[in-house]
């Protein structure tokens, strides 16, 4: 397929693999931030094309994985309520809460619907004035513009039976949390290309400077990732720590200004609890005061609900790159995609699920 196959080309991939081997003289730990990149790395076996000195650490960039148990339980509580149509992106439906997941709520008679766009949920709200329609607004900066637009449209059209359960997370604070951790191993980043398509990459200059780490904005196809790794290794080997853009066909420095403007109109920055990591200050988006009536957590009186994470699951340690899924006692034994203990096993972009699916043995 045009514009896809070119980036999955075998010969070009092997050439980059050789180039990386040629310039690597030391051991380097590189984190790919985005779950989409983790998925591609494991799916295409990209790490097998790297010299043994290069270790890829799978970052916290899967929104499904980092959504706190607390929010999952809230979603289940809301979806189980009478006269509610609960709408969500597909891969949230199977994420286990404390007791069950949204698919089970559906099996028990809850009206749980899978959506491709939050605007579809607004349309459903308009068509069902007798029901409360709630959209599970999950994601990084990539999905924030569409979710903001849904709330904006609902308000403009006076649709009051629509609300969102906000679970938005931001990439740069998570990168800082990792870098400032005393256990940090990460020496360079492949930044998440699609987040940067929205936000640009100005935010990364202070991070690269403060922590002396190279940051390369990187795409999602095998060749993108190999080139991104090459650019990070080159910087590391040359002692540089700059922000570079591998994914220039989709990303520019300023990002998508229209998208940013709707996001800041509807959302403001707030604290956010990450599954397996804990609360990171200023790492999420919450609704602006003007849009507070669209906050499902408040509407359904769930603001005070607090839930702790299960003890056996080490997804937090995995998300920080301190262990690989294979090093988890539960991996593939009591924790499988059918019985996930933590969200990294649920989403196809989670590190544990990717390892389970593509390299069990």
């Amino acid at each position, binding site marked *: *397929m*045009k514009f*896809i196959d070119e980036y*999955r*080309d*075998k010969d070009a*991939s*092997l050439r980059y693999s050789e180039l990386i081997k040629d310039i690597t003289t030391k051991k380097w730990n590189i984190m790919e931030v985005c779950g*989409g990149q983790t998925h591609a790395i*494991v*799916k*295409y*076996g*990209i790490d*097998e*094309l790297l010299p043994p000195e290069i270790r890829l650490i799978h970052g916290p960039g899967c*929104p*499904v994985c980092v959504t706190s148990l607390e929010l999952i339980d809230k979603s289940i509580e809301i979806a189980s309520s009478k006269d509610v149509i609960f709408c969500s*992106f*597909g*891969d*949230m*439906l*199977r994420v286990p809460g404390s007791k069950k997941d949204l*698919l*089970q709520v*559906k*099996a*028990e008679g809850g009206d749980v619907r*899978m959506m*491709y766009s939050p605007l579809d949920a607004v349309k459903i709200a308009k068509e069902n004035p007798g029901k409360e329609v709630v959209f599970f607004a*999950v*994601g*990084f900066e*990539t*999905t924030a513009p569409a979710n903001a637009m849904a709330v904006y449209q609902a308000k403009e059209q006076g649709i009051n039976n629509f609300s969102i359960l906000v679970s938005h997370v931001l990439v740069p604070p998570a990168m800082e949390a990792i870098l400032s951790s005393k256990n940090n191993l990460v020496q360079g980043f492949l930044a998440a290309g*699609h987040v940067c398509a929205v936000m640009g990459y100005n935010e990364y200059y202070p991070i690269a400077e403060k922590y002396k780490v190279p940051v390369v904005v990187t795409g999602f196809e*095998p060749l993108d990732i190999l080139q991104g790794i090459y650019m990070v290794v080159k910087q590391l080997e040359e002692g540089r720590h700059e922000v570079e853009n591998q994914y220039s066909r989709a990303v520019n420095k300023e990002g998508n200004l229209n998208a940013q403007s709707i996001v800041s109109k509807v959302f403001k920055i707030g604290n956010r609890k990450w599954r397996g990591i804990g609360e990171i200050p200023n790492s999420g988006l919450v609704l602006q005061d003007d849009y507070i009536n669209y906050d499902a957590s408040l509407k359904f009186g769930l603001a005070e609900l607090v839930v702790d994470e299960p003890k056996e699951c080490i997804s937090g340690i995995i998300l920080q790159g301190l262990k690989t899924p294979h090093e988890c006692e539960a991996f593939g034994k009591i924790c*499988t*995609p*059918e*019985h996930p203990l933590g969200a990294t096993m649920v*989403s*196809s*972009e989670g590190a544990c699920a990717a390892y*389970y*699916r*593509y*390299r*069990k*043995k």
Partner: protein
Amino acid sequence: MKEFNLQCPIPINDYPKVLLAHGGGGKLMHNLIEKMFSAAFSNDILKQDHDSAQIVLSGNKIAFTTDSYVVKPIFFPGGDIGSLAVNGTVNDLSMSAAIPNYLSLGLIIEEGFGMNELWMVVQSIAASARAAGVKIATGDTKVVDNGKGDGIFINTSGIGVIEHKLNISPRNIQPGDVIILNGDIGRHGIAIMAEREGLEFEHKIVSDCAPLNEIVQNIINSGIDVHCLRDLTRGGLSSTLNELAESSKKEIIIDETAVPVNEDVQGACEILGFDPMYVANEGKFIAIVPAGDADKCLEIMSSHKYGNGSAIIGKIGHENESIVKLKSRIGTMRILDMLSGEQLPRIC
């Protein structure tokens, strides 16, 4: 006295209610069939583990199968629930290389379903039966209350005669055998998905729904020593290969670049976050044949109208390891796993 085991074999704690994924063609359904149904009905014929049961009646070898159809939308590009109900059952019989003869037709219709739509479905059933050379020999009609069905559900059972002397079964798969696929994958699933989601493409993606009895008979009549046949329906190529690896206890190696995928289907999969390897088909099958017969088989398949784009996609590896490996596009090797539930679209 023999003790009855009253405990449900599917752990109630995990699944107190049936989920959609229990019918999705992946691991959950596989477990349900194995642990509940096979355990409860255990007999030598069920153990054949095949698309249709092969039974002997008064000395005649017969293939027997049944399938239910609940597709939504009822009408989709390239077919409808009627053509699906005929071709699906014809194909299950064809995978034993039986010559399909008679189908039964069970209709469960929801009160309020349009009479004109019903007529269109019935005409489609009649046309598909004619095309496949089968007769609708018996039938049943039930109407359920409004809201208790989804328009129309159809069940068809079918019987066919087995005239060949081959042993077509997963257990007859041999190391070194070659796997041939009769064309590009994923059309049916994507055609349905596009219709449901209102996605539009440059060329409309049309379901591959088709009867496979003739193309299979062409292979059999040419004298090829077919070891196994399997159609790729729910769960797609990947689930079928995993089932075969499991029941034959063999390693299967697939070359990703050799598996044909239509460009529009590929594009839709990229948008929806699907992998065509897991998308449903209704007119695709794989033939597993000895390496020496592979070229001849490929030629016969390619020359049939339902074999356009046939390709050799892989081979059977060594014994005693039930695993499907995929040689990826960039030359690395990975596992091609069975899907655990429904394929869910990704967030980003």
